[in-house]
């Protein structure tokens, strides 16, 4: 198990390197004075042309690209993510402020989707062709057809404005109590998780149906076990594995969706910052957000991969084989 874990984590490194190289190239291609990547606009405005040339030398901006890339990479690994072009603020600080909120949002959406999706998908499989199954199929296909931001807007209109149950905008603040924080997250995470719930519902249903047709379920029945045991202990555990794989594959969409949802709800997270930065042509922020979010997505998928390995004893490398 440990060997597998290390192998997976190590396989990430080349991928991240390639992505970082691509991001660096794109960053280099963007228009504008590269000095703005390192110094705040006020500072630049206050200097003379000779002083700016000196600064360019000092920052090594005249060095060949590979050298600059390695320096850039080295900085990132040290924790210096560069500066925002628009106001010179260190990007690492921007992340420290905004990333936790986004992570909370994504995590909440993931949890809601997984719980609801699994629950209803499995019920739909067990009670096939019943009304639960019918409702699940309908919701399943509707859920993946509605654009996420449209769902978000509808939620705002119904739950925030008409019913007033939840606030329409804002974010998890520092001065608010835990319960108040919860209120801010409910609508956006439900909107974000809407299509994932639907997809998981469909997938859980078919995975469970496939498992229920297997021979070892027949064996379980023939042992006289109760229905609950057969479904929960024997069937569910086997149905879970491909589902975890699907969650893994859809993680990038979850991260991507948070960009849109944060905009809809004016939720101050890294996603909204990304959109603002694109409009403000703040290239450093845009590239760095992409890099970091991709890295997080990859890490999360490795974790889920490990979960799959933990669930499936056939994947474990340390058990003894017969003969």
């Amino acid at each position, binding site marked *: 198990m440990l060997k597998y874990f290390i192998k997976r984590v190590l396989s990430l490194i080349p991928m991240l390197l390639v992505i970082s190289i691509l991001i660096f190239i794109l960053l280099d*291609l963007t228009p504008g004075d590269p000095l703005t990547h390192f110094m705040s606009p006020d500072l630049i405005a206050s200097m003379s042309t000779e002083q700016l040339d000196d600064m360019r030398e000092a920052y090594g901006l005249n060095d060949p690209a590979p050298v600059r890339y390695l320096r850039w990479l080295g900085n990132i690994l040290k924790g210096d993510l560069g500066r925002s072009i628009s106001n010179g603020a260190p990007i690492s600080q921007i992340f420290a402020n905004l990333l936790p909120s986004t992570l909370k949002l994504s995590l909440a959406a993931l949890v809601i989707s997984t719980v609801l999706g699994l629950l209803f998908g499995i019920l739909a499989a067990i009670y096939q062709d019943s009304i639960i199954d019918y409702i699940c199929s309908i919701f399943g296909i509707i859920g993946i057809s509605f*654009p*996420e931001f449209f769902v978000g807007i509808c939620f705002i209109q119904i739950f925030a404005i008409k019913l007033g149950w939840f606030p329409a905008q804002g974010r998890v603040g520092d001065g608010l109590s835990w319960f108040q924080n919860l209120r801010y997250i409910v609508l956006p995470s439900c909107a974000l998780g809407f299509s994932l719930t639907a997809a998981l519902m469909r997938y859980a249903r078919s995975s469970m149906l496939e498992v229920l047709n297997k021979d070892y379920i027949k064996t379980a029945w023939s042992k006289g076990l109760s229905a609950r045991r057969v479904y929960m202990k024997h069937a569910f555990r086997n149905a879970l594995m491909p589902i975890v794989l699907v969650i893994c594959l859809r993680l990038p969409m979850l991260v*991507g969706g948070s960009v849109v949802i944060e905009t809809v709800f004016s939720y101050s997270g890294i996603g909204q910052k990304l959109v603002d930065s694109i409009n403000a042509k703040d290239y450093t922020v845009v590239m760095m957000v992409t890099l970091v979010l991709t890295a997080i997505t990859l890490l999360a998928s490795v974790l889920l991969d490990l979960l799959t390995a933990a669930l499936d004893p056939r994947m474990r490398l340390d058990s003894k084989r017969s003969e």
Partner: protein
Amino acid sequence: MPDNTSAGRSGAPAQATRVKKSSSLAKRNFQKLVKNKMAIIGFILIAVILIMCILAPLFTKWDPKKVTLSEKSKAPSAKHILGTDNLGRDVFSRILYGGRISILIGLTGSLGGVIIGCILGCIAGYYGGWFDAIFLRISEVVQAVPQILLVLVLVTVMKRSLANLFIIFIATGWVGTYRLVRGRFFSLREESYVESSRAFGISDRSIMFRHILPNTLGPIIVIFTLNTAGFILQEAALSYLGLGVPADIPTWGNILNAAREVSTVTRSPWIWLSPGITISLFVLGINFFGDGLRDVFDPNQL
């Protein structure tokens, strides 16, 4: 052993029977599809919306781009069936004309991605080697990055235009088809009928296109359908954010862009409800139809 000439001659009747057999399989598949009620509903939804969009001038007399500030944000009435947006443009006509662009983007992006993925997958799957190794890595990288981030990054770097959007979508959308075709090739090329074909001197290209590819066509069509839906949704999201198609070209997402202000959401619901519902219905139709297609081509696949 038949020599080349008789192989050529006997090829004709053999092909005739093969064509007949494949058309009966196609006919059976078609019948199966038609029996699927959901798929038919989906097809009708797609067809109705598509026809209305293509024949837009027949359904509305308003110019979707004409700004009439005196008429702004008017509720639906007999004059404007779905009301006007915040610049006085008729919403219904914007939806019809915008549909043309949105659907076009979805279809072309998907088609382009599928074609490229297919070609690359064929080559990689059949020849393997360094070609496959490189493109597999590339596809892994493209898949690892959340698609919307990829698109956003490219949008930042490139100018905002319709053509660029096509390019971006194709560049991000070929991966699925590539992996599918490649996978199929890998599993099928070891089959004995391929080896015996090769032994008979049939060219590699012929084997690729005549034998393996037709088997893969089914899932490819399914991917094409679903990708179209995905790209329409993506374009809508991008345009909603104000980062997709330039604002003067109407698309479904562009109309929704107005809903970024909370005041529009509450006071003029027709502005965002109509395009939102239209997109949802169209994508719903695609999903129904795509599900039906999937049932036909491979009931076991997900």
